[in-house]
């Protein structure tokens, strides 16, 4: 019981750091939240529930994570905006020596440079952590958006 509680708190704490990193534009740190061969995808509930493999954004290995951020910094054109992630409860779905699986819901409010704030995303994340030497690192993170509609564009990761 205490062990489960501790594990859940560690996941919550990890996600709090992860969201703070995204929301405060420290995106160069993003890749390091994942293992060297870590995987990430953003998809929609429509795809996820039907078992369709398409992602809006997918990365495999830290090189691809860093490429996403260098494209965002140097190549892609978009209006300045920020996210405010609002995490929901974390539910641990599996725990083995060296590995934790967790599921949680989230919402994201996006604020544009002119001041318009809107509900940009609501959904769940399915996270698989490696748990080595008392340290969590994401092996895989699957973000499932409830809506298939993305307002305008998606450039900052979730």
């Amino acid at each position, binding site marked *: 019981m205490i062990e489960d509680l501790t594990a859940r708190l560690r996941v919550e704490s990890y996600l709090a750091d992860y969201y703070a990193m995204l929301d405060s534009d420290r995106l160069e740190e993003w890749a390091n939240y994942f293992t060297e061969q870590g995987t990430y995808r*953003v*998809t*929609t509930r*429509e*795809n996820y529930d039907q078992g*369709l*493999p*398409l*992602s*809006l*954004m*997918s990365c*495999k*290995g830290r*090189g*691809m994570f*860093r*490429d996403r951020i*260098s*494209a965002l910094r*140097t*190549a*892609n*054109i*978009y*209006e300045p905006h920020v996210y405010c992630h609002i995490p929901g409860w974390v539910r641990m779905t599996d725990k083995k020596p060296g590995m934790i699986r967790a599921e949680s819901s989230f919402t994201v409010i996006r604020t544009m440079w002119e001041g318009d704030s809107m509900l940009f995303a609501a959904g769940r994340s399915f996270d698989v952590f490696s748990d080595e030497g008392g340290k969590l690192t994401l092996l895989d993170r699957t973000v499932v958006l409830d809506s*298939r*509609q*993305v*307002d*305008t*564009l*998606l*450039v900052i990761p979730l």
Partner: protein
Amino acid sequence: MTEPAAAETPFTWPGEDTSRVPYRVYTDPEIYELEQQRLFQGATWNFLCLEAELKEAGAYKTTWLGNAPIVVVRDQSGSFKAFLNRCAHKGAVLCYKPRGQITEFNCVYHNWTYDLDGKLTGVAFRKGVGGKGGVGPEFDQNAHGLKPLRVETYRGLIFGTFSDETPPFRDYLGPELIASIDRVIIKPLKVLGYHSQILPNNWKLYAENNKDSYHASLLHVFHNTFGVVRPNMGGGIKLSANGWHHLSYTERTAPNNDPTGMEKVRSLKDQYSLEDASVMEHNLELGDLVTNSIQTVFPTLVVQQILNALAVRQIVPKGIDRTELVWTVLGFEDDDEEMTELRLKANNLVGPAGFISMEDGCVGGFVQRAASADPTGQTVMPMGGRAIEPSQGSRVTEAAVRGFWKGWRECLGL
């Protein structure tokens, strides 16, 4: 001073050709309404969905044609029918789920039923209860079916039209652009997934953007930064005879790494500055060296091949300044796991989060925002002169955009 009669005066196109477009066409609700009647309900073929989404008899999918809700169904004989998704009784939406399986249409409101041909087969309490109530003697059940669309399929794509005057699809598109669909859809299709984008702009700004081959290397900086489209690459613009539809394509002049032209050329590796080049891997599955092929079927369909990322994009107007762009991302039925992986990776390039397409999500909004302030202003499209003609070798032209406006004017009679 603007004359008060302006709102009632039919809109007249300012000027002889379509190299200038008045901002008003993006902002005037009256024009939006006119488009619904004359263009979307007029003599145009509009993409509805894919045969691959309706595999069994009774499978249906809901979709849109302009602002009209549509349902497409596969009937017992295997042919595809499409109807206005609206009960003939009170006008309620008939199918209110994205997809499903039915043996007949059934309106939840008052339980009116229709067969898969759209014929009204049942009216609840038609004869009343205990001899009282029911429909009047003059009610003709045969006169109250679902409103049908004409349907044609081509290479697994299902198109619909409300008009009897729309020419057969092959003639509508013309031989050259039919050939370019044949080039991309070489085998039975399979859906890899869906997503959509809400664009903060009039639908025509996105329709134009697809035909605007001038912007590709300028707005989408990723192309230059990471060497996707290089100046020494070949390509060009093809147009249908009437100018309505177009194809813009880019091709390598030679397979860079493999003189035999065998499959599995790792494209443009020499120029690469991304850490992980695998997102740009290209299996030359179509038997040529074309890396980008963007084709439009006027007014609302885009058929896309970018490396191995195949998709159809459907433009759905949602109001004068709001558009939903629905992406159906495709592979072929016989793709193996490796090929599917390649396509999924390449899809990082396109879609709402696409390295080379996300800008298209915001740039229409940039025009909408600035143009709305000035209903008397106009766009200027001088690239390639004023003509609407194909271009070999250069994509620095706005000819296809002018062709779009020619089609628009012909449909609207303006």
